[in-house]
C-alpha cells in the first residue's frame, strides 16, 4: 500500500486509538519508520495517550512515618469553628441587641452572607482564578479556532 504524508497524518488519531484495521495500521507504521515529518506529527498526536499512560504509573501510598507526622500536626491544630447558621445569627442579634442594633446586624449579616456564598469558595478564594486569568490573550485562540474551523476538543 502506498501512502502519502497527508493521508498518514489524517489517520493518526485512529492509528493511536487502535481503531484501525491491522493492514492499514501496518502501512502507517512502515511509513512512520521512513518519514521524519510524519514521526513528528505522530508524536504531537500522541500527547494525550502519553499523559494517560503516565497516569497508570503506580502512585506511592502515604508512609507510616508521614501518617504519624500528620497526626501530630493535627493534634497541635486549634479546633475548627462551626460556621454559624443564619437563623442562629438572627436569634443572637435579636436577643442581645437593642432593636435598632438588631436591624443593623441583620443587614450586615445578610450582606456578608451574600458575599461569602458559598462559604468554602470564600475560604478557598485561592489566587487560582486571578492567576489563571492573568496576562491572557483569552479570546485570540477562540477566534482563530473559529476562523480556521478548527474544533476545540471536548
Amino acid at each position, binding site marked *: 500500500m502506498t501512502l502519502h504524508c497527508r493521508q498518514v497524518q489524517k489517520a493518526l488519531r485512529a492509528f493511536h486509538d487502535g481503531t484501525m484495521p491491522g493492514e492499514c495500521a501496518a502501512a502507517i507504521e512502515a*511509513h512512520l519508520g521512513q518519514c521524519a515529518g510524519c514521526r513528528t506529527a505522530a508524536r504531537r498526536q500522541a500527547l494525550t495517550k502519553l499523559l494517560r499512560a503516565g497516569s497508570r504509573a503506580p502512585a506511592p501510598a502515604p508512609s507510616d512515618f508521614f501518617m504519624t507526622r500528620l497526626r501530630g500536626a493535627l493534634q497541635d491544630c486549634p479546633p475548627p469553628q462551626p460556621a454559624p447558621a443564619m437563623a442562629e445569627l438572627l436569634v443572637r442579634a435579636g436577643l442581645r441587641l437593642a432593636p435598632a442594633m438588631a436591624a443593623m446586624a441583620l443587614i450586615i449579616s445578610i450582606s456578608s452572607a451574600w458575599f461569602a456564598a458559598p*462559604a468554602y469558595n470564600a475560604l478557598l478564594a485561592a489566587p487560582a482564578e486571578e492567576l489563571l486569568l492573568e496576562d491572557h490573550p483569552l479570546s485570540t485562540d477562540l477566534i482563530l479556532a473559529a476562523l480556521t474551523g478548527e474544533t476545540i476538543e471536548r
Partner: protein
Amino acid sequence: MVPDDCTLVQNVLNGDKHSFDMLVERHVTRVFQLVYRFFSNRQHVEDIVQDTLLQAYQSLGNYGQERPFIHWLRTIAVRRCYRELALRSKRAETALPALSGQEQECLDHYCLQAGARSEDPEAALIARDITARLLAALPAREQMVLILRDVEGLSVRETARMMDISQLHIKVVTHRARRHAQTVLAAMALGKEPHTRSQEQPV
C-alpha cells in the same frame, strides 16, 4: 455501623477530634494520589497533603454538605497544588530537557506503534517521567488543566468547578495547553531524532 463522612464532620464540629482522624484514614490515600499527579518528589507531596488536611480541618465549618467530602478535600488539594505550580513556574528554567535513550524508546512505543497500550508499570513510570518534564515547561495554568483533564480524566465541568472558573475558559486553556504541550513534546523528541531521511516519502 460505620459512620458516614457527614456524621464524622458533625462530630468533629461538636468537639470530637478523633472523628477527623477517621476522615483522614478514609481519604488520605486519594488525596495523596491526586497530589502525586502534580509533583514527583515524595517529600513535596507529603508537605502538600499535610497542608491540605490541616486547612481542611481548620475550615471544616465551611464544608457545605451538598457534595461529597472527598470532592471538597480534592478541591482544596488542587488549589494548593496550583499555587505551588504558579510559584515554581515563575522561577522555572526554560531549557528543554533531552530524553534518554530509554525514554525515547518508550515515547516511540506510544507514538509510532498502532494502538500501543502498555500495562507495564515500568513503561508507565517512564511515560510519567517524560510527561512530568514536559509539563514543567508549560505555564502553571496549562499544567493544571492538562493534569486535571488528560491525566485525572476530569470533564470540563468538573475541572471548571474545581478551579472555580468558567467552562468556556477551561476549554480555551485546554486547547492551548494541548497545542503547546504537543510542540514541546515534538521538540523534546526531535533532539534525539536520528539524522533524518527525506521529509516527503511515499512508502
